[in-house]
């Protein structure tokens, strides 16, 4: 009897312990090292899982609160397909919920590795920072101070003008009182007309000034240098090509092989933005907030018909009406692959420092004279080009030079670009 009672109390204690353990199951798993877990998570799990968002697989923050059976998690992570086959009900449910996609097996993970990862997933969600927005006030302060200075200057000028006016008036009054006769002269413009030489000089100057500006005006007609249209989606080349160092040709892959450099299809955007659903807080700056950039990614999802909650395409895309920036007239032929792949010309040579442009603009005039100048200065890469060995050798002999320019290869012939 006594013995029984004793056993009873033990089981009670054990039961109590179990309850406590279950209640604080998060902290049990947290015995792993979340820092080591983060590294493991980022290199192994993050391809399919995010902490707070559904991706290829479920969101993993607090997964140990959902599944308190540690051994189940161990065997699932090491080989989920086996568990699905064996008919474990929860395993089958998860497998069906995520499009019957088997999770990659990780047999190489030790218990400690998995504990570390679970410790990382159990960490509380960090509070997002909203501090970035306040940076904007600095630049507006500058604007205000400039405005104040300009305003003060204008005020001083007005006061000076008023003072001058008053001085002349007072002097006139004084002269009248003193009875001094002020000599009447012709007004200034009459004296100017009488001076024939001055008229001639100013007419010539005016005509030259006019001719200069009329010439300048006509020369810039049809030249779109500096053209900077507003695009339907605010795509920042600075963030993509500059800060993140993505190669131009990753998106504009047609430039390598085709006449046109191509507008990247939106599936190229989705290669990354399926996963990158919002910008990093450090991407936002004084001019554009994180919220602004996040909205642009949402525009992309709308255009491609991507549903974030279902992680699938709805099948009703909307084409984006991008505004074309660089546009040669229809009578000029230009081939990208000829310049990019054959000539090995850097994109920036014609497009300017695109990787620094928040809003893309036309950097160069793209006029015929501009093309011709480059053709005159640029040497052709003849090394390692067996196809042209003979003609290169003969042309070099003909012109008596070591290096052929594009112009000497026929790059100035009208028919090369106009036909």
């Amino acid at each position, binding site marked *: 009897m006594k013995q029984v009672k004793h056993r009873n109390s033990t089981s009670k204690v054990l039961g109590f312990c179990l309850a406590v353990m279950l209640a604080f199951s998060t902290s049990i798993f947290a015995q792993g090292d979340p820092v080591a877990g983060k590294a493991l*998570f*980022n*290199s*192994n*799990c*993050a*391809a*399919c*899982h995010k902490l707070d968002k559904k*991706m*290829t697989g479920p969101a993993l923050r607090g997964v140990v609160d959902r599944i308190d059976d540690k051994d189940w998690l161990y065997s699932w992570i090491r080989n989920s397909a086996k568990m699905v086959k064996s008919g474990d009900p929860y395993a089958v449910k998860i497998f069906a919920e995520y499009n019957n996609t*088997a999770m*990659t097996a990780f047999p*190489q993970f030790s218990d400690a590795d998995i504990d570390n990862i679970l410790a990382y997933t159990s960490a509380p969600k960090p509070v997002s920072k909203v501090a970035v927005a306040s940076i904007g006030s600095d630049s507006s302060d500058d604007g205000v101070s400039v405005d104040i200075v300009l305003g003060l200057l204008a005020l001083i000028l007005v006061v000076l003008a008023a003072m001058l006016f008053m001085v002349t008036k007072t002097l006139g009054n004084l002269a009248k009182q003193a009875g001094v006769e002020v000599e009447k002269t012709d007004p200034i413009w009459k004296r100017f007309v009488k001076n024939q030489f001055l008229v001639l000089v100013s007419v010539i100057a005016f005509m030259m000034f006019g001719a200069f500006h009329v010439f300048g*005006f006509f020369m*810039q*007609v*049809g*030249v*779109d240098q*500096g*053209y*900077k*249209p*507003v695009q339907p989606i605010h795509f920042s080349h600075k963030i993509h090509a500059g800060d*993140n*160092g*993505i*190669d131009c*040709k*990753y998106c504009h*892959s047609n430039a390598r*092989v085709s006449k*046109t450099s*191509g*507008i990247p*299809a939106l*599936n*190229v955007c*989705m*290669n*990354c933005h*399926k*996963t*990158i659903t919002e910008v*990093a807080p450090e991407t936002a700056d004084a001019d554009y907030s994180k919220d602004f950039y996040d909205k642009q990614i949402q525009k992309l999802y709308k255009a491609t018909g991507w549903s974030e909650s279902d992680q699938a395409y709805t099948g009703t895309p909307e*084409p984006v*009406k*991008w505004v*074309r920036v660089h*546009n040669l*007239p*229809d*009578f000029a032929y230009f081939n990208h692959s000829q310049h990019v792949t054959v000539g090995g010309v850097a994109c920036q040579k014609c497009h300017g420092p695109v990787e620094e442009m928040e809003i893309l*603009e036309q950097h160069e005039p793209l006029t015929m004279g501009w093309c011709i100048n480059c053709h005159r200065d640029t040497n052709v890469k003849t090394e390692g080009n067996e196809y042209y060995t003979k003609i290169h050798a003969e042309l070099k002999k003909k012109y008596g030079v070591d290096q052929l320019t594009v112009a000497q290869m026929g790059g100035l012939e009208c028919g090369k670009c106009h036909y």
Partner: protein
Amino acid sequence: MKILVKAIAVVGILAMVSCNESSTPNYQFFPNMYQSVGYETYSESAAFNNGVAAQLPVDGTIKRGWMPYEVANTAEGKIFAKDSLVSPIKSTEKNLATGKELFGIYCTVCHGKKGKGDGGLVKSEKFLGVPNYKDRDITTGSVYHTIYYGLNSMGSHAGQLNENERWQVAMYVSKLKADLTK
């Protein structure tokens, strides 16, 4: 006289304002010579029902020089590609050099220069879960399959690389894996 001066001033100011406007294109001398009568690449066009010049190929047709890839985007397809897909091109130095160049454009930003999974986007924690080639059981065939269809977070790169280029990259990836496991 005074009206004339005012008119010139107004026209002058208007001209200056319109020249400084950078969000609209400039005037053209003879627009007929600048703008094509036919539709331009990606332009809007009334010739098609959906109003855009960029059209998908007609069902059942393929582009000249393009061969369909018949292995399906399934788990079995992947195993098949891994075990039995063989590159139709030879692993020459030239192919590997092109592969390296293309790898630099399309893969390095995530997979890193040597395929260790330490590209720029991974280092800045913008794109995660990129494995080291060393840790993955891959063959040239399975790499080709993955480039074509994408895998997990990686999207398909079939639109950016043609068949030949995909094989060149796959070959180069195999070489990187061999170098890493050495």
